[in-house]
């Protein structure tokens, strides 16, 4: 039991330390790719809080990611914004929209919840796509990246370590929540909501709290993405982006934090490989097809996700 817990703690820490040490020795391509994967991991972890931990399948999670990114760019101004203000602003606005969406959508359940979250995400998408608020369908550029003192996101090394620290923060926060009373209640809601209500839990309040927190963490991922790319466009909030992050969580394995990270890594890696001409030749132009087929095969063969494969391969089931 304790040995299992120790490995559950040590492995993610070892991974974070390895990435942290390897950082300065990486080329631009590798470093850029890892930053992308880490941002998507945060995004996937925030959705895992809803889907895996609480049993709420949201198909509109990209809205909060996109809002976090847009707020960062819109609030930056021409001379660049203050890191210490932009980060809480991005997370705060995403959390506020999550409060609004959650308050309404959590009155429905099952497939209706999926549809309502999707509808609210589409609403956000069209606000940015069809109005001049954020430069319309072309999106908008950020001229100077967020900074405060030496913490300047224009510096690639700083960006790398800020993203890594954010991922560690998100992972640790969710790991703590999982073992807390709040996390236990969310697990109870996932398994048997009726019984939780009968025992005396304000189920709606718990779900709303989880939804808002997930929105805020997606906003964090959005802030980092905007800081990395220096540009945002409405595609960030498109429904297929919500679908992709859901795929990452399922591909990695629901109900495990590391599943979300593994899913984000695997998905991004597969996408990268399948769309590279040097590897795939002319098929690279049809990467959606090859990626889709691969994911169908994965899900069919590994119903518990990639983490299920890891568990099956390790004899003691310690992973």
């Amino acid at each position, binding site marked *: 039991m304790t040995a299992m817990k120790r490995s559950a703690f040590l492995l993610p820490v070892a991974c974070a330390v390895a990435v942290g040490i390897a950082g300065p020795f990486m080329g631009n391509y590798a470093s850029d790719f890892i930053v992308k994967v880490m941002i998507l991991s945060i995004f996937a972890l925030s959705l895992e809080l809803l889907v895996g931990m609480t049993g709420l399948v949201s198909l509109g999670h990209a809205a909060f990611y996109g809002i976090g990114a847009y707020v960062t760019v819109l609030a930056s101004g021409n001379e660049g914004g203050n890191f210490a203000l932009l980060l809480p602003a991005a997370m705060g606005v995403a959390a506020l929209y999550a409060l609004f969406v959650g308050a309404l959508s959590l009155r429905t359940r099952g497939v209706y919840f999926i549809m309502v979250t999707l509808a609210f995400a589409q609403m956000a998408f069209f606000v940015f796509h069809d109005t001049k608020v954020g430069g319309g369908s072309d999106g908008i550029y950020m001229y100077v990246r967020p900074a405060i003192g030496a913490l300047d996101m224009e510096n690639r090394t700083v960006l790398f370590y800020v993203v890594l620290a954010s991922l560690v923060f998100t992972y640790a926060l969710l790991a*703590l929540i999982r073992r807390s*009373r*709040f*996390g*236990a209640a969310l697990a109870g809601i996932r*398994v*048997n909501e*009726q019984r939780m209500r*009968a025992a*005396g839990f304000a189920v709606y309040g718990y779900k709303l709290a989880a939804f808002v927190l997930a929105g805020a963490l997606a906003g964090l991922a959005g802030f980092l993405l905007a800081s990395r790319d220096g540009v945002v466009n409405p595609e960030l909030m498109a429904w297929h982006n919500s679908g992709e992050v859901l795929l990452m969580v399922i591909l990695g394995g629901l109900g495990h934090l590391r599943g979300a990270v593994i899913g984000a890594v695997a998905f991004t890696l597969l996408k990268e490989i399948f769309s590279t001409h040097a590897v795939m030749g002319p098929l690279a132009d049809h990467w959606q097809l090859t990626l889709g087929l691969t994911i169908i095969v994965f899900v069919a063969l590994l119903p518990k996700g990639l983490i299920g494969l890891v568990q099956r391969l390790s004899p003691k089931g310690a992973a």
Partner: protein
Amino acid sequence: MTTTTNALLSVEKLTRRFGGLTAVNGVTLDLHVGEVHAVIGTNGAGKSTLINMLSGEIEASEGRITLDGTDITGRAQWKRARDGVGRSYQRTTIFPEFSVHENCRLAAQAATPKPWAFWESSRGCATSSASADAALEAAGLTHEAQRIAGTMSHGAQRQLEVAMCLATNPRVLLLDEPLAGMGAEETDRMLTLLARLKATHAILLVEHDMDAVFRIADRITVMVNGAVIATGNPTEIRENPEVRTAYLGDH
């Protein structure tokens, strides 16, 4: 009839309609500490609907429910549970993938939820853990504490159902067929438990096992088609001609 002055839970003319169907029709009854109040009746008599209204799972169409003198008719289910109205379900409603202990601990956690203390471990929660231990002890499940709940026998899951209700430290127990599917030994243990619990709890027992009902009940209410046709002590009910026709006629 009963005095309403010291009733812990009081129900007045409670009615529930589903469209054109009146599932529960003007039911009045009182639950007292120290009493097991059994509600019997054929399938579809409205017993479960009655429990669902008392626990707040569904709204009443008409009537009033008071707990300790306070009107709780419109109060949300989770608030009623926090106020001490505990229930068990006819269909086993547990957390099958959690351990037996965690099932009870989680139910007990409702009393000390502290959801903001995200740095504290749920397993380290001494209050809820102690309530869970006590509930498991009372229900005779201590030896199964570490087992995954869904892997236990049906009878043991029924015991857990009641243990989870007890873990929330309720004052009123609404038990919907707690003996269904239990063996003779388990039934005996459950009846002994109820006899002990009634000293400190007001108990409403919906049950089909008539032997058990007449053994344990201090007061029996008979429902037919949503309405109460008789209330009285077991002897009165046994000798009531209306009850005999209603029951014997149906079977």
